[in-house]
């Protein structure tokens, strides 16, 4: 890592992910995705069962109790990016230590 330039890359990368999930996601298509569409067309979409965690507070990328659709989706997206970042960092540090790579400082 070489000073400010390296630092700036990480800030920019995380910022891009946050903006994509928090803001750009407002404009995402709400049409069924490829598998869903094929399941509809081929007549097996009704085999899908309700998600076991379908009542969870962030189910379907919305925040329970927040009525504004954009705010709800945007906050869910930001939470998702932060959680994925944290889980990813924890998992990769863990597997790296267990894999016997050079010890973490």
């Amino acid at each position, binding site marked *: *890592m070489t000073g400010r330039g*390296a630092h700036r*890359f*990480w800030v920019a*990368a*995380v910022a*891009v*992910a946050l903006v*994509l*999930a928090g803001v*750009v*996601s407002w404009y*995402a*298509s*709400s*049409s*069924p*995705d*490829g*598998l869903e*569409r*094929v*399941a509809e067309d*081929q*007549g*097996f979409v009704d*085999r*899908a*069962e*309700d*998600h*076991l*965690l379908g009542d*969870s507070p*962030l*189910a*379907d*990328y919305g925040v329970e109790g927040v009525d504004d659709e954009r705010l709800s989706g945007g906050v869910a*997206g930001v*939470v*998702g*990016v*932060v*959680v*994925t*970042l*944290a*889980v*990813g*960092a924890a*998992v*990769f540090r863990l*597997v*790296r230590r267990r*894999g*016997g*790579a*050079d010890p*973490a*400082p």
Partner: protein
Amino acid sequence: MHIPDGFVDAPTSAVAGAVAAGSVAVAARRCGEELGERQVPLAAVTAAFIFATQMLNFPVASGTSGHLLGGVLAAVLVGPWAGVVCITVVLGVQALLFADGGLTALGLNVVNLAVVGCLGGWLLYRALRAVLPDGALGVELAAGLAAFASVPLAAAAFVVEFAVGGTADVDLGSVFAAMVGTHVLIGVGEGVITALAVGAVLGTRPDLVHGAGPPRPREVGAEEVAA
């Protein structure tokens, strides 16, 4: 392309779960051995970026949308083994926090998107690197083309699972044609986004791009998947 619960029966889902768990365990061990200290943050950021882009469904045909799967993107940026772990983290967060992708179908989704999409896509990428010109353009082109192909490949993997344990009595030939046909279109988006994202990282931090190394065999990257 997240499979919900109910499309594929329990025994098939359980087998897929075992295959997924085994594959992720191998991937975790391999990436633990080869992942440098500096690549840990990139791997985590790659997972977060893929999570974000998977929220961005783009229209592909009338009344159908698709989003990035990210297998080839992850493999090219952080290596195929770390890529499998990246995609698995994303699928886990989506299933547990956002009720996206069934819980019993998690193994199926890991097999299709992480094992087939990421490892399969990486093999395609290596093959393309060997025939395409060296340099940034070759890397971007190979990443884009491999990403394109990885989407119908993952869709075909679903059809195999559906053929083994599908819960509806429908014509498999037409499910296959529809899945592959639709996902070829989604693959175009996958290819473009992957090429642009790889290009963006190559342009700013080429040292971080795992797959940018020399394309010839005998290089570490080629052995990884073969071993």
